[in-house]
């Protein structure tokens, strides 16, 4: 990947996003595929993550005699970090690989060239719609992931301490601030955008060979994940500085 090429690619995405004709139908289709079709996977992993995190945090809190702080600890951890990160990593794996492989195979089989020849803008149809879909759907998936992870956490807390649902969520939300909620939504926007850009770039610019499909799929996943961690690191610094 060359930086200048990537920069031009991103610039073109922005340009094509706000210029007509809008590929609304395909965008909605991509949103459905990336959102609805990923919900089950995200929900399942988040639920397990909530249980596991609660189960592993509990002994440490018990040592300090602060078991009652478990809902607060878990809610902060899930909303600020775990929820967005788990969602972004799963999306990188599932969506990144599928987008990279799909576009690269289209490239290898010259379908993209055929689209251009038929007068369709392949960049807008294939790249912009997918990037918009990931940018929009990853934050929505994060909201679900947070909610389901908190439910998982509640199940674990209730199993050990018989805490009521009302008390758990009161304590969980007492520990949260608006900044936590908004950071939990704003961060995934960048995660989604990065996953979309990296995956479509890898697929759209895949080498014209059979190995190009595998390479671009692999590159999509690996670079997406690295980007997610870099963005998360930057977001922690920025939102951390905004906290009192």
């Amino acid at each position: 990947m060359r930086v200048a090429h990537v920069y031009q690619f991103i610039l073109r995405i922005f340009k094509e996003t706000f210029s007509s004709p809008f590929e609304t139908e395909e965008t909605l289709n991509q949103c459905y595929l990336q959102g609805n079709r990923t919900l089950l996977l995200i929900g399942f992993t988040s639920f397990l993550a909530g249980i596991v995190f609660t189960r592993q945090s509990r002994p440490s809190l018990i040592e300090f005699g602060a078991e009652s702080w478990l809902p607060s600890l878990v809610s902060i951890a899930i909303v600020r970090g775990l929820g967005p990160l788990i969602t972004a990593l799963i999306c990188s794996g599932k969506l990144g690989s599928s987008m990279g492989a799909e576009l690269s195979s289209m490239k290898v089989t010259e379908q993209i060239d055929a689209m251009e020849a038929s007068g369709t803008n392949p960049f807008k149809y294939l790249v912009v719609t997918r990037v918009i879909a990931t940018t929009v759907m990853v934050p929505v998936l994060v909201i679900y992931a947070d909610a389901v992870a908190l439910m998982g956490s509640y199940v674990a807390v209730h199993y050990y301490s018989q805490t009521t649902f009302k008390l758990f969520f009161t304590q969980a939300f007492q520990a949260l601030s608006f900044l936590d909620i908004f950071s939990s939504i704003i961060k995934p926007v960048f995660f989604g955008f990065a996953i979309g850009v990296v995956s479509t770039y890898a697929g759209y610019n895949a080498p014209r060979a059979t190995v190009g499909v595998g390479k671009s799929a692999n590159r999509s996943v690996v670079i997406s994940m690295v980007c997610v961690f870099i963005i998360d690191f930057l977001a922690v610094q920025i939102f951390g500085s905004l906290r009192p």
Partner: protein
Amino acid sequence: MKREEVRRNTRLGIFVITGILLFLFAIFYVGSEQSLFNANFPLRANFVDVNGLQKGNNVWLSGVKVGTVREVNIIDNSMVQIEMRIDQKLRQFIKEDALASISSEGFVGNTIVVIEPGSSPQAVADNAIIRTGQQTSTQDMMNALQTTAENITNITHELRQIMQEAGKEGTLGSLLTDTTLGPEIKLTIDNIQTTGRRSAVLTSDVIQMLTQLKNNESGVVNTLLTDTSFSRTYEETLANIKTAGEQAAAASAELTALVEKIDNQKNAMGVVLNDTAFANNIQKTADQLSEGVAKFNENMEAAQHNFLLRRYFKKKKRQEEKENN
């Protein structure tokens, strides 16, 4: 639009709308926790030290969360002013003389503001500055704990020294080391218990006896205790006893003087009682007298057989026999 496409879009719409509703719910819940959507009123308090109080920290009234801290501002060199937002519905419980203090949610919890309601009839006004007090901070408690720990260390050290000294010699040492003492103490305690039980029985008997004496109205003791007229007689008796005693003492003194006089060898009785030579003479006289009487009896026996006196004795004998019959 194809039917499949409509169905997909509907599902997508539901999916997105549900996500947005969840997000709004979270916003509303967090906002309500921070009293953003409730009617509230501002309240201020000035502190010298706020112990790390921050915006968003909770405000408690009688252990219940009633608001949050909105602003923490340093207003001069030694004063920090905090602005709180308190639930409007609870204004009636916070009086003009309410007292605010900085505290903590448990030992490792967040810093909070604790309001004591006050007793004034007038509820607090908007933006009023209420009185402040300083509660014991965690640092104060830690300092106190440190002092206590040092004291305990010293006491333990001294106690160890005492025990070491006591273990060597002295009463305490023998108490601690003497193995026979335990059974003896146990035996003593058993004896004390036995004595106690017997004392209880004895006390019971005494009570019973006293009750019987009290109930026996005609008895001597009851009369002594209850009959007021008897006291006069008792006093007279005592006076008589006293007089008799005095007289006995005088008689005793006279008797003593008499004995002293008798003891004196110069008078006859003294000689009789104390002179051993005189006693020997008397003894000899008595012996001679006894011997004389024997001889006299012998002479009398001889006289009875004398023809001159025989007749007289026979006549006397017959007369005696006659009297006996």
